[in-house]
């Protein structure tokens, strides 16, 4: 019986392959916290000239006041070689009206475990641009990628406020009408006067 159990256990063990660390674009799966999958990872993949650029952000939509891990991975499209020189990151606030302002960086990073890591902090709820810059083959390369903190451009917030304000406005108008009508009813002949 023992031998049979041991044989089955060995067979089962043989079926199990190598346990690879599961990474999603540079972020190990154990980095996900209890909020997962509610807190998504932001992922961009862009081809720029001869390079492929991947950027991930965890959390994908940071909350105001919080920080996030921005990981950048760059490789050549033709050879598949990873880029290994310095990469600079700047984060700019991207207002709906007016010019962009720098809120982080320019911060330089060296290759670390085949990715470039940055940890910017976002004080305010807003739309941001993450600017990644590097030099390859004596040419500078720059890419801007959008990033959102909180829910700044969310029309739902404003629409909700507008809807609430509309309801309040309608209630006030209704209340004034009722009050006016009662006052008219109390004043004898007021209605007739108004009509005439």
């Amino acid at each position: 019986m023992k031998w049979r159990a041991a044989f089955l256990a060995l067979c089962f063990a043989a079926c199990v392959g190598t346990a690879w660390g599961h990474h999603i674009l540079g972020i190990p799966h154990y980095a996900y916290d209890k909020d997962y999958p509610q807190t998504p990872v932001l992922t961009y993949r862009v081809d720029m000239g001869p390079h492929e650029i991947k950027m991930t952000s965890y959390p994908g939509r940071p909350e105001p006041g919080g920080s996030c891990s921005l990981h950048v991975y760059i490789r050549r499209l033709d050879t598949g070689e990873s880029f290994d020189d310095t990469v600079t990151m700047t984060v700019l606030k991207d207002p709906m009206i007016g010019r962009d302002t720098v809120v982080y960086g320019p911060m330089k990073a060296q290759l670390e475990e085949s990715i470039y890591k940055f940890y910017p902090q976002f004080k305010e709820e807003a739309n941001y641009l993450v600017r990644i810059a590097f030099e390859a083959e004596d040419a500078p390369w720059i890419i801007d990628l959008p990033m959102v903190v909180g829910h700044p451009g969310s029309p739902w917030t404003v629409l909700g406020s507008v809807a609430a304000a509309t309801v309040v406005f309608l209630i006030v108008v209704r209340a004034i009408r009722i009050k006016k009508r009662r006052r008219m009813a109390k004043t004898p002949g007021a209605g007739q006067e108004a009509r005439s």
Partner: protein
Amino acid sequence: MRRFTALAFPFLCAMLVVLVIVIGKSRGGLELAGGRMASPGPRIDPVCHMEVGDETATMLDGVPYFFCSPYCRDLFLKTPKRFLTEVCLVCRSQGKYTPIPEGERFEATWQGKTHAFCSAEHRQVFRDDPAGFFMHTMWGIPNWLYYTSVAFILIVSFGVFEWLAAREDRRGKASGAPPRLNLLAFAPLHHAIIHPLTRFFARAVVLAAFVLIIAAGLFGNQIPSKNIAPILTWTVWWGGLVWLILYFGKAWCYVCPWESIANWSEGLRFWGPKKEGLGLGLKWPRLMRNIWPATLLFVALTWVELGFGVTMNPRATAWLGLGMVGLAFVSAFLFDRESFCRYGCLVGRISGLYALFSPVEVRAVDHDTCRACRSKACFKGSEKGDPCPTFQYLPGMEQNTYCISCMECLKTCDRDNVALRLRPWASDLAARYRPRSDEAYLALLMLSLAGFHGLTMTGAWREILDAIQSFTGLGETLAFTLGMAGLMVMPGLIYAVLVALSRWMAQEHETGYRAYFIRYAYAMLPIALFYHLAHNSEHLLMEGQKVLALLSDPFGWEWDLFGTAEKTFAPLVDLPTLWLIQVLFVMIGHVYSLWIARRIASALFQDPKRAFRSQVPMLIAMVLFSLVSLWLLKQPMEMRTSAM
């Protein structure tokens, strides 16, 4: 025959424009060498960077190139190297075509494409405002056309027109009332207009388009070239609005979605007369019973639109639309009838002023019948229709300004005494009704702001802004505000000086300066209207076709509803055709201004000599404003959708 020509003239002008477009199209737009290419995808003119459609290609060393106009093609063929060599984007925008030296190449990527620069400074200039460098340049009218037009304006102003007018004075003015044609004599049209569902359906269609703009603007892709909201609002609607006014008067107000939402909500019904609304029915504040609120709104809109690039921001476009709904909605619940349309709506007031020129009017047929009428249902309303929403008393209505063409008076009139009539252009301006100061100032403001719109799209505006910033040390927004304020006031000041001169030359003592100033201001309106039309035609005819691709994917979510999402459509006209149309408009506007100024002068002075003397400074003003219009059309213009 003369009466028929007067009525038909607006439509003859429209036919002429269509004919010019058709001829332009039938000769292939451009006479270019080489065969017709059938390769798919967008083609970019290497000179001005305009996206051209399925045009004929010019072959050079076996490579096809596509151009928007012979101007670009000739420039290219003269020095192809200049356009094929990689040039710094910033240098090119300054008119320098020096190739980037080897080893001094700086690059920056924007929206997935990499661009080269000659220095780190220029790369930074690009990064500060990348969208600005992707505007394609629309070449202005060529020199020969510009100088011919200038000569025409001078000859017409100081020669032929005065000679013809003097001849008319000698022979006596044409007798009889101006011609009118009542369109409601056509019974099916009459029935269609009074049917309550007609307006409801027309409003519903426009409201659906408005909802699409709001939804796409708020929730769609925020890259302007992938969202239908900016182009449908600023190019198709705003560009087409002046055309609409020119031929159909206040037709926009008939279908206005802001008013529809407000009116339906307050009246709790979609058609038919309102029983009892939910609003308070207060009187509009006495202090604001003029068009200054609308004028201020218009200035504010221009400031936001041009100062902050709202035309290229889908979400801001949607919020502006919702803002207008909000204003109309609040006003409908607070104030009596449609007071907002009468006093507060910027589109209603601008179109109202321009509609003084339009060839349609709603009027009482017979004033004696109105006098005999006791019910005054057109003003008070009846069970058949609403009272006049803008407080117009039909027999007293002498001009189009405050009528919103809702046709309620036609429904309520028991005596069938309402007419929808065709008339010659500028009939209201030529009629001698009582001028108002707020309308006169808005007319002058329209002249300033129409020109300002054009100026901000030229390189000259950048130079003015730079000069203001370097002189005052102000930031960009403040410099823009200062520049805009200066350019808004400048035409008014020039006009004010020339009015004083005119009054002095005519030795006028009876009419005060203010009354004189107000009366002549109406004569400037056709110049503003037709320059506005010439400018907007450039947007509508050259960029409007882009909406066809966006109809398949209005939200920018990679849809292809009608199979047009990936297609590139050629502009409706080629550039030489557009130039002819623009110059034609400026000429028409100028001639009408001259004519109206003459009517005003002859109304002010019995003595023809004094009338003539008073007109000379006004002629100078009109020539000056028309020449500025032509100069603006001569400037290379940065088109707004190319950055989208």
